[in-house]
């Protein structure tokens, strides 16, 4: 903890490449190394009794992959499914998961001086997963530890999470 009470993950302060995407009006950045591919959205096979933000599972070249709609998870006002809807397929320590986002922007390298610690505010996003803020000229990126986020209890993706 720094003197101002901010939490900070030092490893994320180093220069990294981030894939940026949009959920409603907010922009997020995630470690590009965790991204396997980016696809369009196809209606997946529904899973009964799953939380609403888990849309179901789909077939990724023979592997069954669950899809999580982050817009629903983060209570965004709209979650449309049209030709511009994007699914980011993540490869996280041998678990493959897809997340539905509004759009994908660019891949950028964030210099360390643009990395700001995450403020201690109340947000719907799992606190542990927000590692910092990226400050660019006219953009603010919410930097996420996407691996931690997807493994968190609230995501309900793992058996231990569900109990």
């Amino acid at each position: 903890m720094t003197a101002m009470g901010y939490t900070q993950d030092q490893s994320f302060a180093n220069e990294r490449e981030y894939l940026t995407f949009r959920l409603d009006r907010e922009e997020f950045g995630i470690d590009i190394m965790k991204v396997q591919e980016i696809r369009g959205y196809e209606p997946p096979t529904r899973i009964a009794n799953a939380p609403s933000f888990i849309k179901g599972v789909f077939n990724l070249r023979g592997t069954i992959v669950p899809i999580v709609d982050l817009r629903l998870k983060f209570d965004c006002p709209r979650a449309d499914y049209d030709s511009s809807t994007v699914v980011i397929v993540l490869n996280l320590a041998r678990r493959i998961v897809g997340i539905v986002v509004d759009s994908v922007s660019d891949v950028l390298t964030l210099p360390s001086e643009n990395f700001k610690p995450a403020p201690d505010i109340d947000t719907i996003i799992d606190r542990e997963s927000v590692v910092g803020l990226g400050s660019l000229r006219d953009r603010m990126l919410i930097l996420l530890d996407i691996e931690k986020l997807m493994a968190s209890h609230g995501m309900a993706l793992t058996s231990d999470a569900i109990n």
Partner: protein
Amino acid sequence: MSDAQQHGGGAESDFDLTQFYQVFFEEAAENLDLMEQMLLSLHLETADDEELNGIFRCAHSVKGGAATFGFADVAGLTHQMESLLDRLRRHEIQPNSAMVDVLLQSADVSRSLLARHQAGGIGDLPSTEALVQRISELALGDGQNSAPTGALATAPLVRAVKPELQPMALVGERTLEILVGPLKDRAQGEAIQELFRDIPGLGTIEALACDQADMQKYAVVSSTSSDELLDLFEFHVSRSQVVIKDVTKTWPETPTDFADAVDVFRATQLQPGTMALDDPPPGTPLAPSPGFGFFDGAPGAPMAPPVHVTSAAEMPASQGKTVEKSVAPLAQAEAATLRVSISKVDQLINLVGELVITQAMLAQNSRALEAGQFPKLMAGLADLDRNTRDLQESVMSIRMIPMSVVFSRFPRMLRDLASKLGKKVEFVTMGESTELDKGLVEKITDPLTHLVRNSCDHGVEMPEERVRAGKPEAGTITLSAAHQGGSIVIEVRDDGRGMSREKILKKARERGLEVSDQMPDADVWQLIFAPGFSTAEVVTDVSGRGVGMDVVKRNITALNGTVEIDSAEGYGMRVSVRLPLTLAIMDGMSVGVGKEVYMLPLSSVIESFQVKADAINTVGQGAQLVKVRDEYMPVVELERVFQIPRTDRDRTSDIMVVIESEGSRVALLVDDLLGQQQVVVKNLESNYRKIPNVSGATILGDGKVALILDTGALVRRSRH
């Protein structure tokens, strides 16, 4: 073993041996396992020459390999074992249970030593001194007088009894050199010869020249066992005065030079059905003897490539059969197998899986074509369908190995356990040739081990108690495996004291579990799966701590299997484990509800029929029944179970599909029967988690995912 040192680590030699280490470790492990099996099934009084030779060859093989690779500790110990076994097979001494025990122990220590080497030499070094000492003692004595140590004093009555009867000790014809003496006079020697010739069918006997004055040497050609010959000689001399040496020309055990070794190699080429590889026949060491200099100054010497022929899983399956027969068929069976890495097999299975999906897609899309339009195409697709089906059956069977692999560990375990507890146990196995996927075999071994130990520890009573109860002194534990529908059923049965209903109910109440005296037996027995449950009065280090049965149940449930218990107090207990045969590819029936498609394992489907709403009766708030011929069956509405949204209000489910699982039947209510097809079973849990009532997922011809229903869960759900 000093010669072996120069090959230590392969650093000095021009030839890098380390690449062959893995192969040696695997082979040595197999040889030690085989030796253990043969030792356990050895008949002490009527020890067959083939049995003794077989055991000798295992030790010899491990010794040779260990020496070649510079594992002096293993080579040293196995050399001692080999010496003892050599004396045994020459009938210089008689086998007894103390020797079997020390050989079993030595095999264990050899395994530990090898494991240590495999792990890079870390860990404690087990001491071999005491063992070596004991082995020499036993080898020197005539075996009859050796005093067995400690807990091994009681000759444990554990034999693996196969339903096929043990064959009589028949051996092939052998050429023997028999040395008899010291004799009182020449007349004695002649009397022996005459006696031999008097008995018809015994063979031939010729007196040979002999240096020692009071000794007589004979050349005998006979197919009678050495034991019987000794019986014969006993008419005139005592057994200790007779030494039988087998000089029959078979495999040269230790080719004395490379030329011989090459001859041996070539001999295997002549056997039909062997692969044309320069492999030494099993039983001969990689280098004929330590210090042979096989690799000296021989860069690029023609060493057999790592792909070689050994028996792998064939050996355990043939235990009890081939072991008692002669060697040559054994060598042939071994030569017809191939060692392949599991990842290659899995890759192959995946590819075949993809092929099945593609073929199903082609089949589906071709249905849109008119029958007569493309006759050649349709014929080709029909062929493809057949070929794919055959290919996939073949490929799936690659991973299947017989249950005997699992069963083989139990004779030894029970022998040790029974003797430790002072009990007498007979172990019977049935259905060892039942096949099971390799992955399942690995996971089922621990739970089964626990169940068998349980039967021995808690089930089978002490001999006196059994006799008092009018039972035979030795308890019987039966392990059986059989296919039933799409499952494999493994049973552990014992004729011990069974379980006490009262004790269990009492214990359950103590633990605060909800029980009633009216509970049916089957449910009472299931209580023992609760964590921490144990009615054992005394906790032994074998079992009784109550951590066993719930872990067993959890492991089996994780394999999508079920456990059932049946018991009768005083008579015994039976635990049945039912597992789905892991099929990455299965025959499925697709059903539709609303806009969704679900898949049922075809093997669970009994029948289907159309039904009217009034045919469904309700019982007490919601439970529904439907009458099928004379039976009332519970109804499971898939629409309700899976909360399937209805867009078309008029459409309701009106088709019943009767499924069976774990002996019970339910009727599933669906909208449509869509079709039957072969599907590839995909794992949901690798990326997601276990979904209730769902056992997996599959990819349909149109690329969409369909969930595969867990018939067991659906059947169980309707029970409560």
